């Protein structure tokens, strides 16, 4: 019962903050609402028994990714077209299509029987590390994915630096580099 109350409060905060992303005018307010959504989702992870994912969600999502997004929004804030309308005429069809999709998936979800399993593992640090770094031959092999993920992050970092830096042979005008540090 207490878990349900916590869940309802956190879910209400998450949904209201997600609606705040949808209806906020300035991207900075949208980013802050998104941080609130992620924090309440981290609380839900802790509630249903995966505290490690909740902590990683706070550290990586709300801490790193959203900090990067808010930083770039602040850097590019001089955009002159922040007064353009939020939605256009196509948006109503998008909303109808997305709601129809949600209705279909929700219908299928409600019909399917589900229940919590009592023997399910708690997503603690021990369980995560034991399975993630299990390098035995019969293990699940998540460590290969982990290495691949390191390569992915390294290559995306290189791609981002290459794309966002000043051009090396740049005689182009100076005013389009004013957002560089």
């Amino acid at each position, binding site marked *: 019962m207490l878990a349900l109350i916590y869940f309802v409060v956190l879910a209400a905060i998450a949904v209201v903050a997600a609606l705040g992303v949808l209806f906020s005018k300035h991207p900075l307010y949208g980013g802050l609402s998104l941080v609130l959504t992620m924090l309440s989702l981290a609380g839900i992870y802790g509630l249903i028994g995966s505290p490690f994912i909740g902590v990683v969600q706070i550290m990586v999502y709300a801490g790193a990714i959203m900090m990067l997004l808010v930083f770039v929004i602040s850097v590019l804030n001089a955009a002159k077209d922040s007064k353009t309308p939020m939605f256009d005429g196509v948006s109503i069809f998008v909303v109808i299509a997305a709601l129809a999709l949600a209705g279909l998936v929700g219908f299928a979800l409600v019909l399917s029987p589900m*229940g919590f399993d009592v023997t399910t593992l708690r997503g603690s640090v021990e369980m995560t590390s034991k399975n993630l770094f299990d390098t035995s031959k019969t293990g699940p092999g998540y460590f290969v994915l982990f290495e691949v993920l390191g390569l992915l992050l390294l290559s995306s970092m290189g791609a*981002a630096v290459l794309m966002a830096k000043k051009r090396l042979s740049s005689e182009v005008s100076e005013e389009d580099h004013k957002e560089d540090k």
Partner: protein
Amino acid sequence: MELQPIYIQILALVIFTIGLIVALSRRNIFFVLMGIELALNAVNLSFVGFAKTLPADMSVAGQIFPLFLIAVAAAEACVGLALVILIFRNRESVDSDNYSNMKG
């Protein structure tokens, strides 16, 4: 009344739908990126919620996979924001309708 797994899935579905609507209907390019992040969050929540309905040896994968998804989302945000900075230098605009080169 106890907490049921279907509530978690319904919450994930609601957040995914809002993220999809944000990503597809907003014109500001930052909101498109934020909608994608919101949808990825909902998928993470759905993974963890389904993992809790499985017995012990099967519930591991659903709790490991969100960690990989979070890292992939970090890479996606990194490259996506670099692309936004690059486009902003050329077009001086964050409105995604101004990015089209072709007519129609």
